[in-house]
């Protein structure tokens, strides 16, 4: 196929079918910049269209350009009619795919749209081995299935993923849960604007807690500490997010958290000389503490060591698990 041989022709925009059609793959975009560009310099590259069964046109490539032209009130546009040079649906889809692949990065919903469209033409094995690597995705059937699940997700979840407000790992973890848990957790994640790490932590803690305590995630989150936290007008979102994670972490890891608190409180009660730090493994797996001393010269080091030596409080530091 060679799309360069497609004929340039004026097409009435009313003749072009609404919606992205079977070939295009754009989602979660803004038309503002494109409209401004068209206003200034016109459409540089003609959209590709093909005749459909109703006598009108489907967009093969240039969905956003057509939408922008419509938004600008243009009645018609020069398009390339590729009906004869790209006779099959697969060829049209691939023309759009490779054009986009070469010029921009796909968001995750767009990747899902691409896989969904490819699935109508190709066998799963071919998509897994040939196309998923092009989309920077692992060739796993599970990942393949995940992207279809993504297309069935609520619109607000899809938008959050496309806008990179919800991580792929986060949404994957959500999909492991029942629908109600997904809905409730998504509200918390988007309401508190959790970052990607916080998203993963909250999903993992709460899922573990719900399994261990045989409670639903909704039940856990409707408990008083969480409802009170949400209503607390004195805390902003990042503070609420931090507090929520603390509550969940303590409930999930009570002994570890308590032991860490004891160590923290012991260390903070010691008046260490300036530029001296005591570090420890937060998992309390490494048995030793680490002493870090910054110094400019030997004289300063000698003084620091002397000051440390004189500190009686050091003996309050015990084996990391001594409190247990």
């Amino acid at each position: 196929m060679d799309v360069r041989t497609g004929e340039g022709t004026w097409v009435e925009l009313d003749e072009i079918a609404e919606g992205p059609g079977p070939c295009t793959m754009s989602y979660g975009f803004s038309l503002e910049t494109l409209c401004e560009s068209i206003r200034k310099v016109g459409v540089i590259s003609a959209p590709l269209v093909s005749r459909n069964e109703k006598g009108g046109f489907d967009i093969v490539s240039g969905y956003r350009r057509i939408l922008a032209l419509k938004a600008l009130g243009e009645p018609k546009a020069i398009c390339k009619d590729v009906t004869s040079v790209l006779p099959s649906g697969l060829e049209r889809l691939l023309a759009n795919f490779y054009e986009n692949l070469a010029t921009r990065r796909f968001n995750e919903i767009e990747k899902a749209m691409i896989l969904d469209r490819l699935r109508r033409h190709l066998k799963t094995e071919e998509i897994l081995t040939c196309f998923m690597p092009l989309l920077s995705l692992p060739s796993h059937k599970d990942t393949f299935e995940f992207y279809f699940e993504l297309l069935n997700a609520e619109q607000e979840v899809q938008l959050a993923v496309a806008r990179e407000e919800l991580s792929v790992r986060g949404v994957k973890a959500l999909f492991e849960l029942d629908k109600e848990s997904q809905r409730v957790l998504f509200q918390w994640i988007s309401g508190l604007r959790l970052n990607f790490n916080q998203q993963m932590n909250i999903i993992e803690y709460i899922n573990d807690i719900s399994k261990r305590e045989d409670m639903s995630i909704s039940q856990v989150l409707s408990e008083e500490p969480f409802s009170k936290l949400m209503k607390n007008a004195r805390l902003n979102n990042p503070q609420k997010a931090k507090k929520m994670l603390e509550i969940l972490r303590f409930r999930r890891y009570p002994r570890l958290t308590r032991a860490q608190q004891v160590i923290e409180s012991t260390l903070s009660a010691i008046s260490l000389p300036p530029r001296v730090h005591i570090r420890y493994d937060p998992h309390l797996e490494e048995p030793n503490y680490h002493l870090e001393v910054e110094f400019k010269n030997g004289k300063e080091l000698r003084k620091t060591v002397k000051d440390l030596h004189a500190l009686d409080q050091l003996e309050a530091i015990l084996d990391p698990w001594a409190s247990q």
Partner: protein
Amino acid sequence: MKLMIKAAILEKGAEEYSFSQRVVEQLRGSCPIKRDQPLSVPRLDEFDLDKRTLRLVSFPGELLKPCPGTRGYLCCGYQILNIGTNCPLDCSYCILQVYFNQPSLRVFANVEQQLEAIGEALAASRKKIFRIGTGEFTDSLALDPIVKWTNVLPSFVAKHHNTVLEFKTKTVSVEGLLSSPHRHRIVVSWSLNSPAIASGEEHGAPSIKRRLEAARACQREGYALGFHFDPLIEHPSWKEEYGRTVDLMDRYIDPAKVVWISLGCLRYMPSLKRVIRRRFPESHILDGEFISGLDGKMRYIKPVRVEMVAFMKEKLEQWGVGRGVYLCMESSDVWEKGLGWSPGTSEGLSQYLDNRAREAFGI
């Protein structure tokens, strides 16, 4: 345990071995047998392990390798004889679910051809004791009714006086062993757990009682025994539950003829958690307080490990096992606090177990 093999595949490259012919003959009439190219792509479905297809494969790499151990913890210096990968049992905690990226029960058809070279390596280090096991990447005996490693490996060990071979299993497939004339320097080991974990998490595996009955049969036939409580799992009434297992051991086994018993608390690669959640949604084995260990694997917080190990040590001592209890992939301070002593280093642990082998077999 009835093996539910639904298909066998003879891979190109494996047909030439007499082992393959014997296995094909054994399977003929019980399931379809196909010929196929070696798998070139990894498993596409991470949750489908295809445990009912047996693949006869020619393994291109070295079959005898030291256990890789794990960073930051003491390793016993074991040697792994890689006879195949994956296992027909389906334990929820099994690391093999994420360890290999190829599906099916893979049996290496070229082991016999490599034994000569392995034998030369063993002979080249006469003063070194080789503790070799086949149960790391598969169950040593689960497929034995078909593949009959017990016909091949004990006679090989008989020729190498510095070698001890351990068959590690959860099954009762001991017919091959019971009919083998070569029993010296063979340790038959059972992986044990609490009855509750065995019935709830070790899918397809015989009960603890049946395992111990099989162990008793082997002990009566003169085999040295080993046991592995790995993974120890924190679960409701775990002390009573593990105590029940030791009580059963007392009923069936003479502790004086047990060479070693390993203890290891549940640990897993982080990627396994998702697989367990998906494949075994009712499982509660992930309920405990797990931290990321020094090797990046998830393991219980230290006081839990110490408590479990100390409890098991006490129980086993009460039963009558004094020496030979050791920890698999643990830190020196858990050894100290849990068992009351530590070999200090991996080399120290290796020597300790070599000495156990010397005492047991007069090496």
